[in-house]
Each structure stands twice: as structure tokens, then as C-alpha cells.
């Protein structure tokens, strides 16, 4: 007998639907436009650590096949909508990340993503917090910088600390013996020594400038240039990642190229750059903040589920 039944109980699926209803009412109440963007794109998100699924479009009746990528997040087309004058927008969509399975990962998962013109990351952090409090009935999140958490949990000044010092901390605390670059060691230490300690709702901001992704770099708290990026953690789990969005097309192009170089250095094939995004930025992206929040994880927290399989009907292994 194959395992045909859902892994989530019917009760969990009903509560899942309720959480999604309350998210929908939250955005409806603010009059934010719900949008829908393509899952398939001829370009891919350039993040060196993401692996998109690729598939071919084959014209019926013959012709040149073309490779498309299932989106790993809807950020590029949503920014194109913003550049076209959409105003505040949101959507919940399925996104796809090749190779990711685990207690908190499924290769396809539901993402809530929204953008707020006129907001910076601090104002958006507040709104994320309001939504999370509404859904989970928890208290307000603590706001703390990335560097402050390294000081609290590892007693190091993350800005002054050499890469060798980070490496020796990583080897001592995480049982890791390989080689990593500076961001690799920071990621290792953060995910092993800090993240599990963030049990209460926590907004982490002022990430290292080298981990800006698509956030602008600003002098934040300690007047050290840092990424205007934040992440929310609850019960030791990453829930959301947001930016005060980069709007400079030249800088965007540089970051794409840097990502491509890093992909090559990691032995990963380069992916087509989304030049439509660069064009949209040239047209002008309004100053805005945007955030992506893992809906399945939010539901896990709402239901007290230990595994993502408990909140989705058919996880990858039964898909």
C-alpha cells in the first residue's frame, strides 16, 4: 500500500485555511492590492545558494524549445509592478526551491510576500510584527541588531572580529571542520549558536553589508554600513526576511554580476540575469520596503507543529 493519505490532519488543514483567511483580511483591511505573478520565468533569482527548478517550454507543432525557471520567490515581477505604479501589493504564492527538504523545508512551499512604497525596513518590521501578533496571539517582537546578537551569544564584536577568529569559534561551537568564507562562518555561527536561542519573537536587523542581497546598504545602528535587511525569528525558526529595497539599477546590476561570480566560484552554473528587473529599476522603483514570510512556518507556529509535514496536505515525499 502506497502512502496516499495526507500527512496533515484534517483539523490542521482547517486551521491552515483559517490562518490564510486572517492574513487575507489583514491586507484587505489596509486596502492593499492582491496580485498574481508568473511562477515560470525565463530568468532566475541570482542568489548563489538557491537552486531553481528548470523546465522547457516546447511550442506545440514545433519550434525552438526555451528553458524556463520556476520562481524561488516572486520578488522580481512584484518589483516590476511597483515600478509600473501599482502602489502597495501583496500575494501568497507557491515558490519552488530545488534540493531543499527537511523538518522545516519542502521543495515547494507557500510564501507571503508584500511591498510597501514609502516604508523603510523599520516601518515594515512593525507591520510584520502586527500581522504575526494577530495570527499567533503573541507579544511584540524584540528588535535587535545582528552584531548585538553576536555580542550577546558569542561575546564577539562581529565588526572587528577577523575571519580566523570566526573560524575558530565555528570549529569550537559547531563541530564543523571544513573551510568557509567570512559570510559562511557568520551563517554557520548564526544558524547554530544564535537562531536556536531566539525563542521569543525577534526582529534582527542591520545585517552585514556583504549579506545585503537586494537590500540597500545604509549606516544603521552602529554607524557601520550595514544591509537595510531584517529577519524575524520565533521559536528558533526563521519566519520572514525583508529589505528596504535597493532601487539603484547600476548597483542592482553589480550585485547580479557578483552573484554570478560567486556561483562560478562555488562550481554552480550561472543563471540568466533578469534584465527586465534592471530595466524596471531604470524606469524607477519607488522607495519601498518588501518582505517574504513563510506561510507554512507561520502555520507551524500557530499550530505548534514540529514539522512542516504536519501543516501541508502532501509533502514532497507523497507528492
Amino acid at each position, binding site marked *: 500500500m502506497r502512502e496516499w493519505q495526507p500527512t496533515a490532519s484534517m483539523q490542521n488543514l482547517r486551521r491552515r485555511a483559517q490562518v490564510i483567511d486572517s492574513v487575507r483580511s489583514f491586507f484587505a483591511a489596509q486596502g492593499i492590492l492582491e496580485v498574481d505573478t508568473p511562477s515560470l520565468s525565463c530568468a532566475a533569482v541570482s542568489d548563489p545558494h538557491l537552486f531553481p527548478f528548470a523546465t522547457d517550454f516546447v511550442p506545440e507543432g514545433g519550434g525552438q524549445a526555451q528553458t524556463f525557471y520556476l520562481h524561488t520567490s516572486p520578488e522580481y515581477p512584484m518589483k516590476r509592478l511597483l515600478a509600473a505604479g501599482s502602489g502597495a501589493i501583496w500575494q501568497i504564492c507557491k515558490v519552488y526551491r530545488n534540493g531543499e527538504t527537511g523538518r*522545516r523545508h519542502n521543495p515547494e512551499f507557500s510564501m507571503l510576500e508584500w511591498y510597501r512604497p514609502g516604508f523603510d525596513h523599520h516601518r515594515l518590521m512593525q507591520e510584520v510584527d502586527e500581522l504575526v501578533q494577530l495570527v499567533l496571539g503573541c507579544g511584540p517582537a524584540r528588535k535587535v541588531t545582528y552584531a548585538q546578537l553576536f555580542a550577546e551569544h558569542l561575546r564577539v564584536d562581529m565588526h572587528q572580529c577577523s575571519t580566523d577568529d570566526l573560524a575558530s569559534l565555528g570549529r569550537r561551537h559547531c563541530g564543523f571542520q571544513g573551510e568557509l568564507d567570512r559570510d*559562511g562562518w557568520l551563517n554557520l555561527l548564526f544558524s*547554530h549558536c544564535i537562531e536556536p536561542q531566539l525563542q521569543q519573537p525577534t526582529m534582527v536587523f542591520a545585517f552585514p553589508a556583504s549579506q545585503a542581497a537586494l537590500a540597500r546598504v545604509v549606516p544603521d545602528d552602529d554607524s557601520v554600513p550595514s544591509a537595510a535587511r531584517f529577519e524575524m525569528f520565533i521559536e528558533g525558526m526563521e519566519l520572514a526576511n525583508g529589505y528596504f529595497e535597493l532601487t539603484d539599477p547600476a548597483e542592482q546590476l553589480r550585485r547580479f554580476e557578483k552573484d554570478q561570480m560567486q556561483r562560478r566560484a562555488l562550481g554552480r552554473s550561472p543563471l540568466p540575469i533578469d534584465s527586465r528587473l534592471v530595466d524596471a529599476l531604470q524606469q524607477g522603483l519607488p522607495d519601498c520596503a518588501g518582505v517574504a514570510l513563510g506561510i507554512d512556518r507561520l502555520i507551524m507556529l500557530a499550530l505548534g507543529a514540529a514539522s512542516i509535514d504536519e501543516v501541508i496536505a502532501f509533502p514532497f515525499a507523497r507528492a
Partner: protein
Amino acid sequence: MANYSTNEFKPGLKVMLDGDPCAILENEYVKPGKGQAFNRVKVRNLKTGRVNERTFKSGDSLEGADVMDREMEFLYTDSEFWHFMATDGSFEQVGADEKAVSDAMNWLKEQVVYQVTLFNGAPIAVTPPNFVELEVVETDPGVRGDTSGGGTKPAKLVTGAVVKVPLFINVGDVLKVDTRSADYVGRA
């Protein structure tokens, strides 16, 4: 031996780590939304029994370990080696040294079947069954009629192990003992 990548680290897989054979106990995929993916792995060193946590980059690999668990009957000891014989009809024998026998020493009885862990064919660990039956060789005289199990006293078993037993137990009684906790379960 074949190499195994982090995504093949299933519980029970035996791999070589720092020159010792280890069994994977748990494997958690840890990946930040932005950044390098890791696998956080709990392993048991099969020589020492110690459990360690280690972290690997996702995609790293380890060499498999030629480790086999065999059902073997305890035969005898010559004080240097403890000899076991396979119960699969092959009558193959191995001699385990003191280090391999380790804590199982307390529960060794002739003709009882143990799980012997072989690494490259040589015994590195002996695991007793959950329950064994052993005779009491030394304890204070039994208190007649006290079967309610109020107090306890120490009793030395034929293997040298000492367990806490109810007061009514006498020398010569055969006891059933839980080898995982060294608890007295009852009279056999």
C-alpha cells in the same frame, strides 16, 4: 567503501569520521533563506559509544564504514578475549577484547545471544539483549514473607554485576535484569 553525501545520511548509516566508524543518529537540514546550507548531524562513535554533534556543508561526503551487526552466542573467555560464535549456522567465531566487550561484561552468560558489532571483520562492540537472566551469588539472607517490595539491598550476580533487589531475594535465585538500566525486573 562507497562515499555518502549529506543527503544520504539516514539514521543507521555507518560512516568513517576521524578514523573511527560511526553511526548516523539524526540529520537535520539547516538552511537560512539567504546563505549556505548545512547538515547538522548527530553521530555515535561505534568504538567509544560516545554521541557527538557535527556539522557539514550540504553536499559534503563521508566514506562508508564496513560495519556489520551479527547475532552471536557467547561461548567463553580466556581472560584476554571473550569468544562469540555466529548463530546463522556458519559457526564462525570471533574474540572480542576487553575494550569491545566494555559494559556488556556485566551481562555475559554462556549460550545467550548478543549483538556483536564488527568493523572490518573485527569486533568493536557487544550489545546485550534488553533482558538477561543471571544467578545471585552473594547477598544478605532473604527476609521471609517480605514480598511486598518495601526495601532493597544489593545483590552480586554471577557475572560480578551488582543490582538492587527486594529483601526476599536469596543466593541461588535467578533474576531477570534489564541490561539498559541495570534494574531488577523479577525472579526468572
